[in-house]
């Protein structure tokens, strides 16, 4: 018995839980054989078939499966833990670390933790009800029903899975094509770029030549109507762009304020916050009222749509309305705010940027102006090509998955209506939350990286995406989204939750993650079992 110490020593280190084991070690040295038990349980209770032979009586004593101790055979399943590995109590709750085997005839067998044996709860993992045998509760055998349901569900899932795998193959094929196309496109653009650069050079030279030959610029004739209309048209487009931008800014501000209203810590009792919220509520009411009665977008859209169909001379002159509409007043105000704020922070000289058309107060000789236009046009063309190249390059460098299967989903958007909000997510783009009650929309972040596993070699790597750097929460972090992808026959967001402030979790099914190999199949099975049970 002297070696007891050597067994105890390593255990001393982790004191708290191991005290139980310590006792087991000590107790494994009981040598008295006469011990009367309350109930005589089968020695095979809780033992899986393949290990049954290890529990056969081969004499008066029995050795723990880990060899740690020899105990009387009678001590197996005597509801007292003797072995450090718990092997002497496969059928009771006596050992903290043993597993109870449920045969589940007619369904899939399973193991449960010893802590679930005779705990008064019918474990779903034990459809045969064998885990509760002390009479506290009667667990019916439901294996037949469970199995039927399981098989049915399994079939359904298999069907979806098969479909998913097929679609994934299409995605891979499509991805391959996209990749080739992009590579070709890049090739083509690079050639174009070279040509464009030459053209810019040529026109620059030509322009210079003209400018040099006409050193003194003369007063020019008034421009034609077409010229004026063109400028005005440009101005309208510029204004429209600004309006849109301002709309976005309003939306952003509204969402910031809305967040403040919803998320502010009321315990702060900060009157400044409360006043702001009250003002926001009042503003919102009026704003919504005005937005209903006066749909400015539509008017503009109509005008824009028809503009090119109207003969030049009939195109209307832009007139100032006698009474500025609410929206215009509002926009004017926003401009002032925007400029004021930007100016405040030294970001912009507000006087210079309001209108973009101040340069055309004087005209130049036609020849010169043509040359200049031609040069500018060439320059613009080059810039466009460069931008396009950047775009294609970024697509080419994007990580579209193991077999480029996600390329097919690039920029595809999916949404989910949670009742209060509609969430939308564009793959490799951005995620947003839109309120179903008002106009406010919140940026939840942009695609940053794959986070399914540490290494991209791990098949799970491409099952989880991170979208980050969304709008910052009041008194909290920037919003982010973790997108969890599961195999399915189509692309669909199943649920959205916010387990922590400003950190969103989306569960989505997609064929893109339906892998077709065996270990994945196993994973799938466990997953299914989990759902089922």
């Amino acid at each position: 018995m002297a070696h007891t110490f050597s067994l105890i020593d390593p255990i001393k280190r982790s004191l708290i839980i191991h005290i139980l084991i310590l006792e087991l070690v000590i107790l494994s040295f009981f040598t008295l054989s006469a011990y009367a038990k309350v109930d005589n349980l089968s020695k095979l209770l809780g033992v899986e078939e393949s290990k049954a032979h290890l529990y056969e009586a081969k004499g008066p004593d029995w050795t723990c499966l880990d060899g740690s101790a020899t105990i009387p055979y009678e001590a197996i399943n005597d509801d007292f833990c003797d072995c450090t590995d718990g092997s002497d109590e496969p059928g009771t709750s006596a050992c903290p670390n043993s597993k109870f085997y449920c045969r589940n005839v007619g369904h899939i067998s399973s193991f449960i933790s010893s802590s679930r044996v005779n705990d008064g709860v019918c474990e779903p993992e034990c459809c045969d009800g064998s885990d509760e045998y002390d009479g506290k509760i009667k667990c019916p055998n439901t294996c037949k029903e469970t199995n039927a349901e399981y098989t049915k569900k399994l079939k359904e899932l298999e069907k979806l899975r098969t479909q998913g795998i097929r679609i994934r193959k299409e995605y891979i094929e499509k991805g391959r094509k996209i990749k080739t196309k992009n590579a070709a496109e890049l090739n083509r653009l690079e050639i174009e770029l070279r040509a464009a650069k030459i053209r810019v050079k040529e026109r620059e030279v030509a322009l210079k030549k003209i400018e040099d030959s006409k050193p003194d610029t003369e007063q020019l004739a008034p421009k034609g109507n077409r010229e004026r209309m063109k400028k005005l048209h440009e101005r309208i487009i510029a204004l429209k762009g600004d309006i849109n931008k301002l709309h976005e800014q309003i939306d952003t501000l509204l969402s910031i304020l809305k967040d403040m209203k919803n998320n502010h810590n009321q315990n702060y009792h900060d009157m400044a916050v409360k006043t702001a919220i009250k003002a926001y509520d009042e503003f919102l009411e009026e704003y919504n009222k005005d937005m209903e009665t006066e749909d400015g977008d539509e008017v503009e859209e109509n005008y824009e749509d028809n503009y090119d169909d109207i003969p030049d001379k009939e195109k209307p002159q832009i007139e100032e309305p006698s009474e500025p509409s609410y929206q215009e007043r509002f926009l004017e105000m926003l401009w002032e705010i925007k400029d004021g704020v930007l100016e405040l922070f030294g970001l912009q000289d507000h006087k210079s940027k309001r209108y973009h058309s101040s340069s055309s107060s004087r005209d130049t000789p036609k020849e010169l102006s043509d040359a200049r236009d031609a040069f500018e046009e060439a320059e613009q063309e080059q810039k466009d090509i460069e931008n396009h190249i950047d775009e294609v390059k970024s697509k080419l460098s994007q990580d579209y998955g193991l077999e480029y299967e996600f390329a097919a989903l690039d920029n595809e958007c999916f949404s989910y209506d949670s009742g209060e909000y509609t969430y939308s997510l564009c793959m490799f783009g951005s995620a947003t939350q839109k309120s179903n009650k008002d106009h406010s929309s919140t940026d939840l972040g942009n695609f940053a990286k794959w986070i399914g596993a540490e290494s991209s070699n791990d098949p799970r790597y491409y099952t989880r995406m991170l979208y980050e750097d969304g709008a910052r929460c009041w008194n909290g972090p920037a919003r982010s989204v973790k997108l969890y992808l599961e195999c399915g026959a189509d692309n669909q967001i199943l649920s959205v939750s916010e387990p922590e402030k400003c950190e969103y979790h989306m569960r989505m099914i997609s064929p893109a993650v339906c892998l077709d190999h065996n270990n994945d199949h196993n994973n799938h099975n466990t997953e299914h079992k989990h759902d089922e049970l």
Partner: protein
Amino acid sequence: MKFLFGNLKFSKASVQTKFYLFFLLYFIVSALVVTAVKRQDFKTCEQSSFCKRNRAYADRLTANHSLISPYSVIQDSIIIKDGIISGDLINSENNLIFIFELHLLEIGAARVRINEKNPLKPRYDKAKDWALVQDPSYTLEYTLISSKPDVTSLSFGKERKQAVSIYHSPFRVEFLVNDVPIITLNDRGFLNIEHLRKQVAPGLVDQSNGENDKIIDDENDLDKGLWKETFNGKEDSKPNGPESIGLDISFPGFSHVYGIPEHASSLSLKETRGGDDSYSDPYRLYNLDVFEYEVDNPMALYGSIPFMMAHRKGASAAVLWLNAAETWIDITKNKEDKHRLSSLLGFGKLTPTSTSAHWISESGVIDVFAFLGPTTSDIFYQYGLLTGFTALPQSFAIAYHQCRWNYLNQEDVAEVDENFDKYDIPYDVIWLDIEHTDGKKYFTWDSVKFPTPEKMQNNIGIKGRKMVTIVDPHIKIDDNYYIYKEAKDLDIFVKEPDDRVYDGWCWPGSSSWVDFTNPSAQEWLIKKFAFDQYKGSTEYLFTWNDMNEPSVFNGPEITMPKDLIHHGGWEHRNLHNIYGVAYHSATSKGLINRSNPPRRPFVLSRAFFAGSQRYGAIWTGDNFAKWDHLAIATPMLLTIGISGLPFSGADVGGFFGNPDTELLVRWYQAGAFQPFFRAHAHIDTKRREPWLFGDPYTGYIRDIIRERYALLPLWYTLFHEASTTGMPIIRPMFTVYPEDEETYAMDDQFFVGNSLLVKPIVNEGQTSTEVYFPGNEIYYDYFTHKKVHGSGKVQIEAPINKIPVFLRGGSIVPKRQRIRRSSAAMRTDPFTLLIALNKYGNATGSLYLDDGETYDYEKGHFIHLQFKFSKRKLFSKPLSLLNNDENLYAQSISSVRVERIIVLGLDLKPKHIYADCIDGSKIKRELQFGLPTTNSANVVIIKGTDLLITEEWVIDFSY
């Protein structure tokens, strides 16, 4: 920032202005970083006019020794009858007459009441209706010792060991035990009753009462706030004018006083009027919702128990200042040799030998109970008889609780529940905070997040688990909300002075508060918990009362204005501190009444008062995930525990902020040894369920939660003891070692019952600590069973996976070592007895068990065992009242065995161990046992006996 915006062009449109305004505010607001309590939100004594006046009154008397208290007994007015000594007092400064009564009580205490003889209108005197179980009965066991013109003395109690002397001029009351004074009232002359009066025009002195308030008139600024006062822009109309009461209560010869929770402060109370490490403000009792409170501070917090205990070698005494208005307590310790040269020159440190408390309340009558001990256990019992003992909780309530603001929806709840099973961590209760409701309308569910609450509760209920939902006292103003509508129709809301229903701001926005001091409101709320009333509630659902100070976001000091009107026309100022217990009481009764036969309730409350122990548990409110908040939890809970309210806990992990892994592990270790064990987290924090930290940390948390479950039989036994004797569950060192002066101020270690000595680790990076082992006794490491070498202060290793816990020699601890997922699943599990012998080879312990749910135990359906180890024999002796064949509970566990007996510290190695059932029906039989070491009897473990827990037996350790 404002001037910069001034440069911008403002349009005339009002919308525009508003837009600018909120734009501006957005910038200002986002720049705000609020990190801690806003002290300026809460009053200091200086800002509370009655506190300031009474402090000034005290200062004047202290400064001028020729001044004495103007109150004296009117000659020949004393009448002694049926245990009551009564008489009239006169205040010589204004010639007003007061009546006093001194009641000698059967419970070993006395009561002193002083009121105006002819007040303009009645003064508030209903705090007793909430705090006391019933009006205490008077004892007839007393003898008049002397009745001289200047003093009246009586001895009382069966052995006449207690005595009281009433000195007539000035009025002073002295309580003595064995002829030694232990409590004196008005010793320093601070007795001050501001009589009710009519307001006179400013500048005029009210002549009707002679020299009215001479002292106050002397100091001009003290006149401010008599009839109106303003704090942070909020006005208190004070239509009754000044009506405060003040009195000094001294404990002669005592250098330590304890109690008056709730403060984030030390167990032994600090001085507040100068002295080493003193506070500058008095301790304040005024139930308040203090955001991110500071530690080591006498500021008021969520609850108030105006109970103070004093202890020294050979004597303990205590008082209850029964008043529910805002109360301040100044504490001074008088050094006897104050004027000696040595002290003036600063030679050496002097031991303070007397402690005096100056109690100041805004209104009401003087109603003081003096508990005369002589031991701390006597006081706990006396106080318990008066205010009630802790209600025996359901057994799940003392297991582990998992809370977060907020578990989002049913899926979230199911996932958390499942993860506890997956990681094999036991838990009993999952909690839902305010977000579970439909728009913070309590008694409702958010139908999107919680569409099928019954199903959700049943799913966890079948595993033996429970759920708790929050039900707060603020009621959203919304006619479509049935609770609001009913309360409005019943006219039970708290009112403005002009009779309009009060409208304040809380979680749901505009809200009103039901007046739970109104009997109709009590009756109404009790009914609201019926299963058919509270839709979606099941028998698995229990309740959490939060914000019941009450917390009012836009009110003065984040609570109700004092001039609001309650039932009977009483102003809120009179009863502020009982609002919380009144709500707690109704909720608790609601849960009892919803089942037939009734089941024990579980209601957690944040606000509390004397008597709250009858209704459920309390917690220390919104603490912070910081080490100093972990550290302060121990003294806070010890203080609350000795003040009659032992079922308490601090949120594990800290409510605000994100604890790092080490802090969280240490907090779980400390929390596992608190009576109420709940993890909770603010909505803005990261998730922190135990499995999120990975091994080894998840393992450490799992280990200590499992240890809590293993010790549940001990905890339940201690709760039973608390429910019958008033003994605290976790006990300050001095209550277990009352003669050891070293322990008197010790508050970083404590006993669980009398058997486990616990010292939580509360410092970052700390891996060893000094533990004080009192009593020249043997102590054993609880986890390794090894003897501690040395006594007194010993350095102890405490790696991150270990909290220092020791078994005190002489104790027997009942345990259940089977790992289960919930306490309910352990109900028929076998027991382990852990026996730690003292130096004489003896030990005792007990085990109380019942069904843990119903009130059947009141009819005797429980088992209560006394274990005794003496002369190498272990006895188990049932103390139950009913025979096992009539005892339904005993029958339900009739096959439950003692599976393991561990004996620590036997002097000799036993050769054989025999068991014998006392009734002789079974034959004497030999038990198997093991020894961890060959030739020592340090640890003996008896294997799996078939001894039944319900039967009487003896185990004989033969040699």
